């Protein structure tokens, strides 16, 4: 499984807004394909899109997916698994705060389960 870099959400959202211009959200979403107007609106508000949505929007912008990757990485704690597999059922565009809270929670739950605390 490959590592994910952080997306520059501000720049991504700005480019989406510029590209959409005066177009209605629904019309833009239709142009992008398989993306809803509410999802597009949330992306413009700097919410993190799911991978499929992100790639479709990049295609619509005429940019490669790497264009908005910052390549920023935080230091890994010692003994922390690089990837914790978690299936998340949620709205496809969560705010950055929610995703970070989820990541921390999943990490803590994994540690506790490994130590037999849950």
């Amino acid at each position, binding site marked *: 499984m490959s590592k*994910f870099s952080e997306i520059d959400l501000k720049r991504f959202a700005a480019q989406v807004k510029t590209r959409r211009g005066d177009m209605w959200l629904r019309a833009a979403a239709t142009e992008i394909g398989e993306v809803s107007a509410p999802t597009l609106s949330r992306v413009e508000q700097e919410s993190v*899109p799911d991978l499929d949505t992100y790639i479709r929007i990049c295609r619509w912008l005429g940019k490669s997916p790497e264009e908005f990757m910052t390549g920023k990485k935080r230091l*890994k704690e010692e003994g922390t698994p690089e990837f914790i597999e978690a299936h998340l059922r949620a709205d496809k565009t969560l705010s950055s705060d929610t995703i970070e809270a989820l990541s921390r929670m999943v990490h803590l*739950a994994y540690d506790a389960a490994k130590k037999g605390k849950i």
Partner: protein
Amino acid sequence: MKRGFKTEAERLSVGFRQKLGLLPAEALPARRLAEHLQVVLLVPEAIPGIKQGDARLLSRMSTPFSAAVLPVDGRHLIIHNPSHSDARQESDLMHELAHIICGHKATGVDTSLGAPLLAYDRRHEEEANYLGGSLQVPREALMKKLLRGMTRDQIAEFYGASLDLVKYRINITGAERQIMRWRRNQQG
């Protein structure tokens, strides 16, 4: 969905009820199925060491987070948002249990970085939607209840399901179409 999946899902729904000493048409609470599968159910505030702010954020009704499945050393944990309605929680838990039953490989979440991308496997989602729905509202039982004249609201209440789920089950199983065909045949 792969060929034969729907039939297998309905078989599993009845099979789990039998193992738990329930009749094929009885309601099967998600918590009971989780216990049988030895899946641990948790809410965010029960996670040791979680920050209060994080627990509160992930337990808000307005937060779109519903549930997360975490496989650890051969066990499964499901962490879910306790503020959503009972019917929605049932649906979310059954959906996640369906993923576990199907043995779907989970989506990767990189916890060493900031805001990770979430990748969804559409086929697995469709399968979990169908099986989760079937576990809650079995097809045969649904048909029988509709034939007896139960309303969709009554069926939803009986199974602790949302009205939307009952409508979904009626559509995806073709139950109403089959009943109409049967009634037409009866009328000769």
